[in-house]
C-alpha cells in the first residue's frame, strides 16, 4: 500500500520550535521540536492539558503555530494525513462503506472507482462484512475500526491518532493495540499517537515524547529499542516492564519539574 519502506527511516516531518498561544495568555505549547521518520510509531504521552491535541492539530494543519513551523519532506502534503479521533466521528446517516468513502468522495472520486480500495481497507480492519451496516448497529470497538479504515483509505504518509482507544474497555483496547501494530506492519505506515497510558505507549511505539503541562512542552524523548513485529508476549516480558518503569519515572520527574 505504501511506496516507502518502513525500515528506511528517512525524515518524514519535523516540528521545529513549534509554539502555540491561544488568545493572549494560554500557552498551550512551547518550543516543541520533534522529528518523525518514515515507519516511526511516535507516542505523545502526558497529563491532560499538556498540548498533545494542539500538537496534532498543528501537524494536521487545522491550526497554525504561533511560533516555529512544521517541515515536511517532499512538497506535496495535501491528502497525506489520516486522522483518528477519540470518538469514532462517523457520519451516522451513512453506511460504513460510505463513511470510508468520504475522503475520496470529497476529492471527487466516485463510489464505483473507490469501491475496491474501500473494501481493502475494511478487510484490513476486519470489517469486510459490515460495509452496508450503519454506525449505530456497531459496537464501540467496531466503530473505531471503521474510523481507522477511513484514515487508511487515502494511503496517508502519516496517521494522527488522538487517544483513539481511551473510551474503550481494556480488553477491547488491548485487542485493538495488537491489531494496530499488525496493521502498521502490513501497511507500513507512520503513526503519531496521543495517549494517557504509559502501557499503551510502550507497547506500541518505538519513540515516546513525554510531555508536561503549563506550558505544554516535551520533557524528554524515550526510545523503545524493541523491534517489530511485537506480539502479546511483549506485554509480559521483563523488557516491557523496564520500559514502563523508565517512562513512568520520566513522567513523574516531568510533573515534579513543572510544579
Amino acid at each position, binding site marked *: 500500500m505504501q511506496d516507502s519502506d518502513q525500515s528506511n527511516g528517512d525524515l518524514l516531518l519535523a516540528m521545529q520550535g513549534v509554539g502555540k498561544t491561544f488568545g493572549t495568555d494560554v500557552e498551550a505549547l512551547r518550543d516543541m521540536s520533534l522529528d518523525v521518520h518514515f515507519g516511526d510509531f511516535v507516542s505523545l504521552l502526558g497529563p491532560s492539558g499538556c498540548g498533545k491535541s494542539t500538537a496534532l*492539530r498543528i501537524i*494536521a*494543519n*487545522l491550526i497554525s503555530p504561533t511560533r516555529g513551523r512544521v517541515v515536511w519532506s517532499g512538497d506535496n502534503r*495535501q*491528502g497525506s*494525513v489520516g*486522522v483518528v*479521533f477519540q*470518538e469514532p*466521528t462517523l*457520519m*451516522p*446517516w*451513512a453506511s460504513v462503506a460510505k463513511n470510508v468513502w*468520504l*475522503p475520496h*468522495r*470529497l*476529492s471527487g472520486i466516485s463510489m464505483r472507482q473507490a469501491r475496491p480500495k474501500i473494501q481493502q481497507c475494511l478487510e484490513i480492519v476486519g470489517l469486510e462484512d459490515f460495509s452496508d451496516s*450503519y*454506525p*449505530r448497529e456497531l459496537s464501540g470497538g467496531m466503530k473505531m475500526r471503521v474510523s481507522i479504515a477511513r484514515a487508511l483509505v*487515502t494511503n496517508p504518509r502519516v496517521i494522527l491518532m488522538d487517544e483513539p482507544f481511551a473510551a474503550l474497555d481494556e480488553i477491547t483496547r488491548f485487542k485493538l493495540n495488537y491489531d494496530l501494530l499488525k496493521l502498521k506492519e502490513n501497511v507500513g505506515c507512520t503513526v503519531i499517537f496521543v495517549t494517557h497510558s504509559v502501557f499503551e505507549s510502550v507497547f506500541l511505539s518505538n519513540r515516546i515524547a513525554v510531555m508536561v503541562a503549563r506550558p505544554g512542552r516535551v520533557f524528554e524523548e524515550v526510545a523503545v529499542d524493541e523491534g517489530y513485529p511485537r506480539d502479546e508476549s511483549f506485554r509480559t516480558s521483563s523488557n516491557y516492564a523496564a520500559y514502563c518503569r523508565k517512562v513512568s519515572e520520566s513522567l513523574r520527574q516531568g510533573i515534579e519539574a513543572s510544579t
Partner: protein
Amino acid sequence: MAQISEKLLPSSTRARQHETIVDEDEYRRQRRAKLERIGKWLMPLVVLVLMIWFWNRIVTVNEIPHYILPDPVLVAATLAADLALLWQALLVTLKITVLALLVAVIGGVGLAVLFTQSRFVEMSLFPYAVILQVTPIISIAPLIFIYVDNRTVGLLLCAWIVAFFPVLSNTTLGLNSVDHNLRDLFRIYGASRWQQLLHLQLPSALPYFLGGLRIAGGLALIGAVVAEYVAGTGGIGSGLAFTILEAGYRLNIPRMFAALLLIAATGVVIFLVLSLLSHLLLHKWHESAVKREV
C-alpha cells in the same frame, strides 16, 4: 473438553428457547408491553365514546335546542348531508395550508442556509425574523389584506408568516450543531464550502428540520384559518373558516360543529403525514426514530 462444551452450547440454548422458560419479571414485562400496545389505541377510543355519550345525555336530558348545542347525532348527520359543500371548503383551506408550508420550507431552509454561510446576514436579519414571529398574526392580517389585492396571495402570506419560523430556527440550530470533529475531518480532506453544506451540514440538520416541520404543519393550518377569518367575505371558493363564520351568522350550529370537526381532523392528518415522513427519512440512523427492543 473445551471443544465439546463449545459444540454443545448452541444446541442447549436452542433447547432452552423451545421450552420458553420465562421468569416472572420477564412475563410481567411482556404483558405490560402488550397491554400498552393495545391501550395506546383503545384508551383514546374509550374516552371518545364516553365523551360523545356524555354530550348526547346532556343535550337530551336538558332539552337543549339544537341552535345552541346540537346533538352529536345531528352533527354527524349534518356532516354527511353537507359533505359536498364542506369538502370543497376543506380543499380550499388545505390548498392554502400546503402551499404555505411549502413556501415556509423553501424560505426557512433557504434563509437558514444563508445564515450559516454568512454571519453578517444572520446578524442583520435574525432579529426581524423573531419580530415577525412574536407579533400576533391576527393583528398583521388586516393590514395584509389592505395591501395585497389577491385573496389567495394574502392568505398564503399570513399562513407563511406563522409557519416559517420554526423551520428557520430549527434548521439554523441543526446546521450549527455539526460534530466539530467531523467538521475538522472535512477540513483536513479539503472539502469545499459547498461539499461541507451538502455532505455534512444538511444531513446533520435533517432531524432538527423535521422537528420544525411538524410544528410548522400545525401552524400553517392555524395561519390559514385565522387569515380566512380576517379576510371575511368569500362566496365561492372560500375555505372552512369562512364556512364556520357564515354558518354562525345563520345560527346553523350543527354545520359549525361539522366544519370544526373537519379542521381538527385535517390537523391530525397533517401531523401524521409529517411524522411518517420523518420516520421514513430517519429510521435507519437517528436515535429518535429507532425502536428499542427492550
